[in-house]
């Protein structure tokens, strides 16, 4: 078994952290030259959508929005790309089995539906006062 490659980041819950996360992901993808581009695209898209969702919603009630942190871990194996995101913001009130696309000309509201269709697995849970997201995109090399 080759060593799975991992990325661990601790980020401020601000929009600019999405840029930081994507820079780190680009460096991780460089370490996996045989990664299928379609899998990488779908996984990164879903991860960015969930990150954006956390930044926008989990901390919207905070009076000092820049002190909150979120944790991101990405693991690459021969079988799958797995992402774990967690934050201590407000609980997300959502039903992932019932996310749908908005009207054609809506300017927002597509993120979760897109993340859900891009991934093979997307789970959300709340425990120990933290929101936890699990993202998984299977590789189809075998």
């Amino acid at each position, binding site marked *: 078994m080759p060593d799975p490659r991992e990325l661990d980041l601790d980020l401020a819950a601000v*929009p*600019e952290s*999405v*840029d930081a996360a*994507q820079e780190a992901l680009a460096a991780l993808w460089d370490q996996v030259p045989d990664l299928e*581009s*379609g899998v990488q*695209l*779908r996984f*990164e*898209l879903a991860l*960015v*959508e969930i990150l*954006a969702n956390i*930044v*926008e919603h989990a901390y919207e009630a905070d009076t000092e929005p820049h002190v909150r942190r979120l944790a991101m871990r990405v693991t690459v194996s021969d079988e799958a790309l797995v992402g774990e995101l967690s934050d201590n913001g407000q609980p997300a009130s959502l039903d992932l089995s019932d996310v749908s*696309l908005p009207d*054609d*000309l*809506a*300017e*927002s*509201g*597509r*993120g979760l*539906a*897109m993340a859900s*269709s*891009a991934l093979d697995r997307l789970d959300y849970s709340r425990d120990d006062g933290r929101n936890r997201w699990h993202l998984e995109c299977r590789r189809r090399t075998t």
Partner: protein
Amino acid sequence: MIEIDVEKRTGGIGVVRPHGRLNMVAARQLREVLGEVVAGGVTRVVVDLGETSFLDSSGLGAIIAGLKTARQAGGDLRIARPTPAVVTVLELTNMDRVLRPRDTVDGAYDA
């Protein structure tokens, strides 16, 4: 901050070309640029996505906002030269029906 070029062409067409990742940070910039182009009197807009390495729902939202602004001003917005990352998003959201990407910037208003 990503770089967004704006080029005014003959025929009253404005070409807006984002370079790099169109995520929630860059989407705000793109939304402003598209608003300024239309406010400046250029209502036929082409967003050239040939240098856009990544697009998310907020970037897509900025393009849709630009489309609506251009149409309200009597014009239109078309997208051209989508990269695989852009095509992925358009397909996942079924927006390829609405935004119908064109192969070239020059031919974006041919049909």
